[in-house]
């Protein structure tokens, strides 16, 4: 039963991350996901300090806000101060992450029960310790599952409603501006959603590997799809496959579950790439005959 919940929760992480990852990959902003996932740390700490409990919605709010601030700071450095794009990402997120580290290790020490290792690497095997039980004995599953579920519903709602906005943003932002559409709104909405995904996932898979869930399935899907909606579904599919295979592989080899999932995801990427190259070579040969 515990295995079942771990797989289900990890699959939700994979789905939530893959959907947004598709847009990040298409916008060539993969590192933005990495930046946000690290930079939300001070937001998490502050929110935790005030709410005193990890289940508080204040945590999500605090983290999402920090994520938005991160995105804003990166844009500001790049556009107004004219610092090279990747340098502005590097400056911003390491600075914010460092502030978070100082908070945990110094200022809020004792008041905040956050373990840096847990933030960085998560621990999916532990999610079953935090259960939701009603009526004293009816076990409804781990809290992390429900957090992911709510995040997933929010993401799906926004992606369905804002699909054309996100598509325009990803393909041709200038054209959107020329149509009189507020592209900043769509950009920051997307960054807010990315913050949400990384925050709800960091307990499960950690801030480092969540980027793998964001980027790898989306990049794999891009290899073999020709339209945006199929690309999103394919990315989710690759994410879920990686979760399933990774989970059983980890159990069998007795290694880190999240690590195995991301490793499978990466191997899947290279496999698809090779098969794809083989198929197009074959097509070429058929054409030449």
């Amino acid at each position, binding site marked *: 039963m515990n295995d079942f919940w771990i797989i289900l929760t990890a699959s939700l992480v994979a789905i939530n991350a893959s959907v947004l990852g598709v847009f990040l990959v*298409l916008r*060539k902003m993969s590192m933005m996901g990495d930046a946000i996932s690290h930079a939300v740390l001070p937001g998490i700490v502050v929110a935790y300090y005030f709410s005193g409990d990890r289940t508080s919605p204040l945590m999500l709010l605090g983290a999402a806000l920090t994520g938005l601030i991160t995105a804003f700071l990166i844009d500001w450095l790049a556009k107004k101060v*004219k610092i090279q794009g990747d340098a502005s990402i590097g400056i911003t997120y390491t600075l914010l992450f460092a502030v978070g580290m100082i908070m945990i290790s110094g200022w809020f020490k004792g008041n905040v029960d956050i373990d840096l290792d847990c933030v960085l690497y998560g621990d999916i095997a532990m999610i079953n310790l935090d259960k939701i039980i009603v009526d004293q004995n009816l076990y409804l599953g781990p809290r992390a599952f429900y957090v992911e579920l709510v995040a997933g519903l929010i993401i799906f709602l926004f992606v369905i*409603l*804002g699909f*054309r*906005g996100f*598509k*325009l943003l*990803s*393909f*041709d932002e*200038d*054209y*959107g*501006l*020329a*149509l*009189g*559409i*507020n592209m900043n709104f769509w950009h920051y909405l997307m960054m807010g959603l990315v913050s949400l995904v990384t925050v709800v996932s960091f307990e499960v898979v950690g801030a480092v590997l969540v980027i793998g869930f964001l980027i790898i399935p989306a990049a794999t899907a*891009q290899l073999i*799809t*020709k*339209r*945006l909606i*199929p*690309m999103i579904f394919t990315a989710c599919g690759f994410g879920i496959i990686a979760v399933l295979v990774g989970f059983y592989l980890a159990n069998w080899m007795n290694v880190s579950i999240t690590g195995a999932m991301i490793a499978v995801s990466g191997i899947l990427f290279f496999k698809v790439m090779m098969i794809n190259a083989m198929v197009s070579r074959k097509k070429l040969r058929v054409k030449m005959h």
Partner: protein
Amino acid sequence: MKDQISIEVHNLTVSYGAGPVLWDVDFELPTGKIIGVIGPNGSGKTTLLKTIMGLLEPSSGYVKIQNKSLNEVRDKIAYVPQRTSVDWDFPASVYDVVMMGRYGKRNLIRRPNNADVEIVEQSIQKVGLSDFRDRQISQLSGGQQQRVFIARALAQKADIYLLDEPFAGVDAATESSIISILEEMRNEGKTVLIIHHDLQTVLEHFEYLVLLNTRLIAKGNLQEVFTKENLSNAYGGQLTLLSKVVEIIKATDFPIREKDVDL
């Protein structure tokens, strides 16, 4: 309609930080003409178009479209960016991209209706891409991609069209098919503003010219503007090559087509 002003630009100065890229540019353009914007590389042509479309904020001066501010007439003006400004590997079909021409501030959330679909199909047909309707845009030639962008602008049903180098990397046949689409639009009273590079084809394509090199060098009807003097003011140093071009053009009523003479 004929005597109305389509676009006016007043004391426009634009810079990207260092020195100005456009300096005190001031002009009014007529309605219902195919207008060429020419000038050497880096002379600020793209910058001018982007400023007119509100993508760049001028450091001074202002733009008016049909005597109104840009935001009041957004749906009257369509923009065709340089083809190389987007990643054509994007997972979208020709139809998907042309449909973006129907997006707008107010209808981004709602699904396209039958009228939108109809307009998109017509636009695709107009540029001769019906057979490629469902093809992924990465699997098109450069000329076909350019036509996708033009179809997207057509789908906006605007009055004024701004095109940034629509003939770059396009063969002569495609160029003339694009020109005939644009002429048809002109005949319907639309205004078409085109950034153009090939001086040799200027005489064929345009009836009105804006000659630019950071400052406005000249603007007006073709014969007034396309003179040796104006061109040498705009192109400066490369005068010898230039005067040769002008002489060839003047000697032969029928201009010789020699692609991409880089001046």
